Each structure stands twice: as structure tokens, then as C-alpha cells.
């Protein structure tokens, strides 16, 4: 349970980090270390070089600008959890972060690290899917932007090259009066979700849904949107069994079997959790329109 030998690099700028990635073979980027360090300790990864991003300047920030939240890749999960802007305008992120690991891991864990590790059960990965976040990637020829829908290319594999690194992520803002809910099932508080549902809703004062995002985590090899659910509820005023019926389609989503749960159980959870999240989000939407807290 000790890391294997490696060469250690601690660049001070993004340019230096990109330069190192271009010149080194078999290098791994170290962000908050809450996933890579266990993998090193257990020797699941054997890098020849560790490029530590913790001393790179200018990668830790939370900016509430032009209807979007710009977050530096090395921003700690804890700083997002305690951000007033996040609480006020991206409240689902606050709700989700409270379920990301524990205080001790959120103090170190970063948003960029979480998105690049790309565990399909990770709360922040689900949120980025639900928000259609945009990832900014720096490489030898400058920066490029990747829509989050294009970001996962395979199980735990982001669409970034070996000589690139994620420097920031942008979460668009939803209407000031919107409904939201992040609901997950895990064995113990702070564990990765076995399955999770992240819901965002916009609507009018009468309760009619005009826009919906439903992201399901922990199901497949990559996080996904439940498009059938979204299509079934937009334009509707929820009544009767609308949510229950719409969420039945989640039972058809691709799901993995593993030691925690069989695929059929995850599909069942997806249907139940997405319904619960929709009900909670819709109640909050109505509350926001009634002028209450949201």
C-alpha cells in the first residue's frame, strides 16, 4: 500500500504543465488526489511521472459571469460547497456536493479531478451531464472547448489527449425561478451513488414544465440524460401519475452489473429516484414562483 516509484514534477503555470505533458512518457496529472492517490497506493496505476497541479497558479476560482458559473479545474469541492453564488444560483450543486465523499475528501478533491476521473457514479459528473457543461482544455496549440455530452468517450475515459489538461468548466445558469433536486441511493453517506438522479426544471407560475433536464448517474459506463423522461414531461402540467409513468422508461436504460447491485436493481432505482427527484424539483419550482425560498 505504498505508491510505486515515479519522477515528481510541480509546474507553476499551465504552460509549464502542458510542456511537461508533451515531453514526458507515461505521465499522470495529480489534482486533489482523492482518486489517483488510492490508485497509486494500491498500484492500480504505475506512472513514470507525476505532474502535480497543486502549485499551478490561476486554476482555482469561482466566477459568476454572464449567466454562467466558471470554475477553475483545481477549485476544491469544499470551496464550491461553501460558495454563496453556487447556493443562490446553482443550488443543485450545493445539494449534490454534500453527498460527495466527506469533509476530509472535499477539502482536497477538485472539480477538474472529479470530471476527468469520470466515474459514472460521481455526483459532479452527473451534474455536468445535466447542465450540458462546457469543459475548457489546454494543450500545445492553445485552448479548446468540449461540450460535456462529447466529453466521455468510454468508461472513465475523457475526450482529452495525453498532452492536454482540463483548466476550467462552465455551468450555464437556469432561470432564476427553477426547480432542482439531486437524489441518490448509496449504502453509506458519502459513498459513490449506486444510482442517482439530477433534475432541473423550468416552468410557469401555473406549474407547466417548459424545460427539463434529467441526468441519471451510476447506471451505465458513462453518465446519461433520460431524454425520454424529459420529452414526456415538457409542456405538461404535472398531475396524477405523469412523473411515475414518464420515469418507467428509465427501466430500459443501459445499466451495469457489479458487486454493489445487479443491472435490474439499478434500472429500478433509476425509475424510482428520477420520480422522487422530479417531485421534489417540481415542488421547489412552484415554491419559487410563489415567492418562497428556492
Amino acid at each position, binding site marked *: 500500500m505504498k*505508491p510505486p*516509484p515515479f*519522477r515528481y514534477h510541480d509546474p507553476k503555470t499551465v504552460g509549464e504543465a502542458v510542456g511537461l505533458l508533451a515531453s514526458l512518457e507515461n505521465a499522470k496529472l495529480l489534482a486533489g488526489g482523492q482518486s489517483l*492517490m488510492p490508485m497509486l*497506493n494500491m498500484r492500480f496505476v504505475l506512472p513514470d511521472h*507525476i505532474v502535480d497541479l*497543486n502549485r499551478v497558479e490561476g486554476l482555482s476560482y469561482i466566477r459568476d459571469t454572464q449567466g454562467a458559473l466558471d470554475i477553475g479545474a483545481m477549485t476544491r469541492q469544499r470551496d464550491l460547497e461553501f460558495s454563496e453564488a453556487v447556493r443562490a444560483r446553482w443550488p443543485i450543486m450545493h445539494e449534490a456536493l454534500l453527498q460527495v465523499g466527506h469533509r476530509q475528501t472535499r*477539502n482536497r478533491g477538485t472539480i477538474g479531478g472529479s470530471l476527468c476521473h469520470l466515474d459514472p457514479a460521481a455526483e459532479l459528473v452527473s451534474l455536468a451531464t445535466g447542465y450540458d457543461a462546457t469543459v475548457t482544455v489546454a494543450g500545445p496549440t492553445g485552448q479548446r472547448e468540449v461540450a460535456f455530452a462529447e466529453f466521455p468517450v468510454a468508461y472513465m475515459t475523457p475526450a482529452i489527449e495525453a498532452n492536454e489538461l482540463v483548466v476550467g468548466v462552465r455551468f450555464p445558469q437556469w432561470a432564476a425561478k427553477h426547480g432542482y433536486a439531486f437524489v441518490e441511493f448509496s449504502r453509506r453517506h458519502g459513498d459513490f451513488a449506486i444510482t442517482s438522479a439530477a433534475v432541473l426544471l423550468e416552468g410557469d407560475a401555473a406549474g407547466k414544465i417548459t424545460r427539463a433536464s434529467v441526468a441519471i448517474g451510476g447506471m451505465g459506463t458513462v453518465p446519461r440524460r433520460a431524454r425520454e423522461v424529459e420529452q414526456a414531461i415538457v409542456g405538461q402540467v404535472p398531475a396524477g401519475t405523469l412523473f411515475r409513468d414518464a420515469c418507467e422508461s428509465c427501466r430500459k436504460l443501459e445499466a451495469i452489473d457489479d458487486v454493489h447491485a445487479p443491472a435490474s436493481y439499478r434500472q429500478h432505482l433509476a425509475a424510482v429516484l428520477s420520480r422522487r427527484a422530479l417531485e421534489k424539483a417540481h415542488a421547489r419550482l412552484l415554491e419559487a414562483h410563489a415567492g418562497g425560498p428556492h
Partner: protein
Amino acid sequence: MKETRKIAVTVNGKRYEEEVEVRVTLADFIRHQLGLTGTHLGCEHGVCGACTILFDDRSARSCLMLAVQADGHDILTVEGIAPSPDKLHPLQQAFHEHHGLQCGFCTPGILTTLIEFLRDNPDPSEQEVRIAISGNLCRCTGYQNIVVATLDAAKRLRAEPTQSQVNAAQRS
């Protein structure tokens, strides 16, 4: 291929300048190189919480950090919690009185976790305490007396004048 670096780190108020192998975790550095064996290692992959320390006043799992990353930073371990060798911190005193530990293996990590928690949340509910220690595994107590001790410690700390209040009283 044994790469080393020279680091300067403050642990429990004392400054150390040490040569470290770059692959050594902060936990192993604290235990083996500094000889501060109060920080315990259970799982060594970030699950049990026994190795929790305060890194620049924030709790962190020292098995998930490299010693070289601590260069220039400030660390508090369980050895640095008590105000003096013959006086326990109110949190430690409450654990002692309420039987908040049996074997004591998890205790250093739980104490450091709770130091940060009670600083941020001086008047927590029982549920909040349970969530705060959800990242620390204890196999002896069933957590019951840990929670009781923490709630009592919170009460004691609220009653105790803080250093800033003492300073203000001395000035007036």
C-alpha cells in the same frame, strides 16, 4: 530511481526541514520520518479516516497526499491538539469522560475531523455530528459515545471563552 526533495513544513507549531523521497505519503512521512506516530494508518486508500490531519486548518486524509506536497504548509496532528502536556483539549476530555473510544485506533482521525467541524459548527445537532464523522470508521464504539462526547465537547467549547474574547477582555 529514487528521487528526493528537500521540504520545509510546520507540524504542531514546530518547523522541520527534511529530505523526502517524492513517492512517500504525508502519513508515512509524519509517522516514520518525524516520529509522530499518533497519526494512524488503517486502510491507506482514503476510506477509514484514521490518518486525518489538519492541513492549513482543513481536515485531510494524510494517506492521500504526498509529503512533498506539504512543503511550505502547516499541519496539525493529534499530538498538537492538547494545550499542554498535562491538560487535555475539551474535546479529548469529553472523549475520556464519555468513553468515546475503546481501542483508540480511529481516535486521532476522529479528533482532528471534529476539531475542524466544531470550529465551523459550534452548536451542531446529533445528525450533523453523525454526518461529520461519516468518513471515519470505528469498529469498537458503534459511534454512540463518540456522538455523546462530541455534543458535550461542543457545549464545553461554547462555554469556554475563546482566545479572542480573552484578549478583548484584557484590553478593556
